[in-house]
């Protein structure tokens, strides 16, 4: 019986737009990482006159975290959009070789969360939205009583996210395909974990109110 699964030639314009889209998502994540990393302060101090929040380490981490989580939310919307597009039968990703989001997100055996049967894109949307809420609310009122709880919860969620990332990467290895957008969301989670851990270490210390 012949296999009916054909490979599709993708228009070049879509390859370009996918690359641009990936770059657009990568930019805030990289900038967020730079803001979160401890040794990058000199890079931003020059801009602190125009952007006062770059003056303090705490506010730089919050800014980086908010930026990264916002990008994570946008990427999750994109992956959920791909999920919905694949279900309507479209085919639009950049490559039909190893990088293929439609093959990964369109694979009915792996594209939903076990037990709950919710698409991974929707899981990402809810998770990043909640993390962004925790981070954004804490950044607006950093000395409020609930900030410690928010930071702890954020750190815990992004740490648990590592397990989910491991599971999803194992799926990709099994399929021998990589979804670029999913990978970008995974990176955003890891960067966010770094941010929450640093905030956790700073909270209650003198550096918090410097």
């Amino acid at each position: 019986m012949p296999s009916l699964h054909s490979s599709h030639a993708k228009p070049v314009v879509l390859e370009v737009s996918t690359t641009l889209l990936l770059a657009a998502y990568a930019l805030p994540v990289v900038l967020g990482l730079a803001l979160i990393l401890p040794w990058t302060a000199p890079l931003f101090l020059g801009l602190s006159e125009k952007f006062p929040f770059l003056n303090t380490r705490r506010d730089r981490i919050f800014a980086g975290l908010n930026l990264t989580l916002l990008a994570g939310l946008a990427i999750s919307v994109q992956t959920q959009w791909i999920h919905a597009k694949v279900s309507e039968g479209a085919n639009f990703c950049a490559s039909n070789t190893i990088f293929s989001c439609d093959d990964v997100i369109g694979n009915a055996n792996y594209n939903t969360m076990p037990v709950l049967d919710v698409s991974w894109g929707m899981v990402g949307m809810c998770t990043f939205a909640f993390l962004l809420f925790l981070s954004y609310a804490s950044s607006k009122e950093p000395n409020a009583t609930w900030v410690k709880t928010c930071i702890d919860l954020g750190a815990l969620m992004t740490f648990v996210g590592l397990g989910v990332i491991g599971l999803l990467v194992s799926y990709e290895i099994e399929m021998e395909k990589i979804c670029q957008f999913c990978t970008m969301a995974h990176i955003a989670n890891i960067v966010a974990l770094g941010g929450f851990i640093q905030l956790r270490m700073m909270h209650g210390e003198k550096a918090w109110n410097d």
Partner: protein
Amino acid sequence: MKQIYDNEASTLTDAFLKISSLFFVGILIIAFTTNGIATGTEEGERAPALDGAAYSGNGWSSFDFSQEFDTAWDGNVSSDWVMIEFMDTDCPYCVRSADLYGEASEIFHGSNPDWNGAQVNFFASATQLDIKGHDSSRDEIAAFRDKSTGQECAGADCANRGGSAHNLITYIDDLDQENMDEWDIRGTPTYFLIQPDGIIAWVSNGGTNVGDVNGDGTENNYIDAIITLVTRETGGA
């Protein structure tokens, strides 16, 4: 102190509203720019997965139903359609329909010069219904397909069923009824005609457009459904 609490509450509410807005903007973008198709077993829905080992005459092997479909199908005649029968080798109605099902698999195959439509690949998901006397096995399924002797199908030797061996039909082991449950099958035989992109085009029962597919005023069977719906070189679906 009261002032501090008010500020904190305001911050949480403000952040919640802003992030919720972002979330729902994302949902709205998805809602307005996609037209997702639900997975289900009614006409117009995407066929669910079908798991289990498959038998095509050369032993049982693993089977990936999704490989049968091309999600980017554009209506061309070169992509194959799928007909699947949910059956039980001990069900007398399935035994009686074996002759026609086998014949249909040859008529609508690409090797038949008289058929000018897309090839239809035939499958049968063989289960064991919870009915007294229904006692199936992989050997029995293989005997049913191959029309070979030594196994009993609905009270008679499987070799005595009508028609010839089903050389063009792939049988799937659903003895545990997993596929039957997933596909919400209420009885056997039940037939599904599936488009090359995996969307169910016709269901013999339980669908939204049961029966009369060609508008002749009578209840039609899967042969009528194939002739009416499958893409043809001279027009067709």
